């Protein structure tokens, strides 16, 4: 009997990871990003959410390597006098929390509905998949804008500031589930005709157990691949919504709202307010997508069986 750790160290998964420079580099960068995001309150020079620390006189100071820059603000300040570096750390934190939360919601809804559609088939399948088609035929941003408008009306625009993170998570989560549902459905359709499923039926196990304990574990690899890519998509959706002014409020900026705030000052010379968080976001999304691509190659059963 091998231990789990031994199994992991001897696995093809780890082997191909160690041979792929891009994957290793992306993973290293991702770990740094995650560390920064979750350690933001301890490592950033100031707390940009606390108005006591902010001095409007410090606004639009350029990064330290430019004329007029100061050592106190290594990447400059934004239009409200917040330190860019700290704001970007905190913004990344917000973006990641929303991204992961939204993907968890998407996966939960998508997996359950996709599993039901794929396994039960017939009318259930037809209804659920037409629902997914309908949602797919709207641009997701429109769905998200629509939903955030409803939420703002229901909860009142005033309380939106406190509710922004959970609301955005739910909005982005609800607007993207069909992706998961379709992927899961396709792999469930392949699995459900295998003999081990018939064996489980001959034993008399209830459908619920067959679906979740027998079929689902065998259909999950595809979910892993799309989850990584969907995290990147969710972060971008959040940035897009914030850029449109429907996302995080200016007082608690995410990367998207930071880009939006800086855009007004772009042509007056304060380019760093927009460009730096933009690059930060691009790097983060790029790293996740590269890892997702690598994961897809490794887990693709047509390239490697086991």
């Amino acid at each position, binding site marked *: *009997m091998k231990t789990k750790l031994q199994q992991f160290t001897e696995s093809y998964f780890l082997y191909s990871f160690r041979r792929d420079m891009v994957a290793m580099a992306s993973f290293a960068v991702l770990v740094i990003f995650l560390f920064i995001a979750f350690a933001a309150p301890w490592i950033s020079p100031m707390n940009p959410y606390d108005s006591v620390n902010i001095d409007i006189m410090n606004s639009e100071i350029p990064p330290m390597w430019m004329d007029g820059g100061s050592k106190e603000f290594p990447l400059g300040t934004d239009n409200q006098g917040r330190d860019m570096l700290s704001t970007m750390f905190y913004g990344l934190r917000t973006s990641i929390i929303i991204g992961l939360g939204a993907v968890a919601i998407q996966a939960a809804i998508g997996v359950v509905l996709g599993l039901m559609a794929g396994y039960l088939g017939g009318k259930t399948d037809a209804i659920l998949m037409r629902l997914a088609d309908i949602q797919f035929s709207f641009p997701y941003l429109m769905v998200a804008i629509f939903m955030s408008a409803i939420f703002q009306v229901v909860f009142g625009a005033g309380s939106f500031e406190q509710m922004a993170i959970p609301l955005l998570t739910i909005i982005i989560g609800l607007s993207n589930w069909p992706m998961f549902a379709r992927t899961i459905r396709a792999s469930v359709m392949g699995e459900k005709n*295998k*003999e*081990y499923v*018939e*064996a*489980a*039926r*001959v*034993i*008399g*196990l*209830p459908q619920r157990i067959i679906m979740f304990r*027998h079929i689902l*574990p*065998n259909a999950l690899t595809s979910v892993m691949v799309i989850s990584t890519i969907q995290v990147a998509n969710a972060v971008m959706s959040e940035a897009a919504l914030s850029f449109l002014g429907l996302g995080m409020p200016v007082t608690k900026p995410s990367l998207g709202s930071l880009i939006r705030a800086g855009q007004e000052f772009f042509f007056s010379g304060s380019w760093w307010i927009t460009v730096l968080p933009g690059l930060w976001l691009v790097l983060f999304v790029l790293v996740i997508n590269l890892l997702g691509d690598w994961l897809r190659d490794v887990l693709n059963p047509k390239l490697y069986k*086991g």
Partner: protein
Amino acid sequence: MTTHQTPLLTVENVVKHFDISGGFLDQLAFKGGIHLEKTTVKAVNNVSLFVNKGETLSVVGESGCGKSTLARVILGLYRPNSGKIFYDGQRIDHLSHEQWLPYRRKMQMIFQDPYASLNPRKTVRQTLEEPLRFHNPKMTAQEAVDKVAYVMEQVGVDPAWIGRYPHEFSGGQRQRISIARGLILDPNFIVADEPVSALDVSIQAQILNLLMDLREKHDLTYLFITHDLSVVRHISSRVAVLYLGTVCELASAKDLFESPRHPYTRALLSAIPRIGEKKAKHIKLKGEVPTPVNLPSGCVFHGRCVYARDRCRKEFPRFNELSNSTFVSCHGVEEGWDLG
């Protein structure tokens, strides 16, 4: 073999058709006005047979003749379109999931492909304990482990391998584990759906011997589905020959191999290669097996039968009992035509 005892399993006029016509748009047809047209595969047509306690009934036939479908209908994986199935005198084909449960313990199945029939994400222990725990909720962990170890020993798999995953085993070992899963609930009746056809020839004999040993030890009754005629003769007490979802002939193995009655059975048996024969006396059938989507009228075999007459093209032959409890569905045999 006596037919006077109550059979363990009786199948009466079972019909199973599959609708493959797809959605509404696929069904639209424009022949002489617009109407909906359903396409069905007639997998099992009016099959009747019975299995006595303690015997091995083999169901033989070429690919696509409905053998596996019949097995799945008997075990309630598919609901028959019509007909009745009795187990130990109780009708079981119309039961709900809950009502089926007591019969699940008594009727189990062994599958064809040992690479597909074990869940790749479950260890041997999980695979074998699951049915045990499900049907005996009060069983303690120790009792379950003991039972699993006992059954693993019975099928010739070392109980020390209990924590391994299926991919760590060879095909023959996997099939043994699959058999262990079938046995773990102590069933009386086992449907074996081509249990050796996916295995290497040297392993086939081992698995067949194992199945026969287990039958004696545990007093099992088998419904054995296969297309391998050389296997059939050795293991079965009776044989049912299936052609296009219809039973042509049902007879004891000895009678069937020595004096086959139905023209299809004769052609089938003449195809078994024999050692020492200089020139094989194959009966060559004309044409191809018709598609089960459009069944021929009358006797399903008439298009390929050299003895076919008018009646065969029009009338579906009855399934008649001859002497020595042989059943044949053929107009020629019934009327005593000269069948060569």
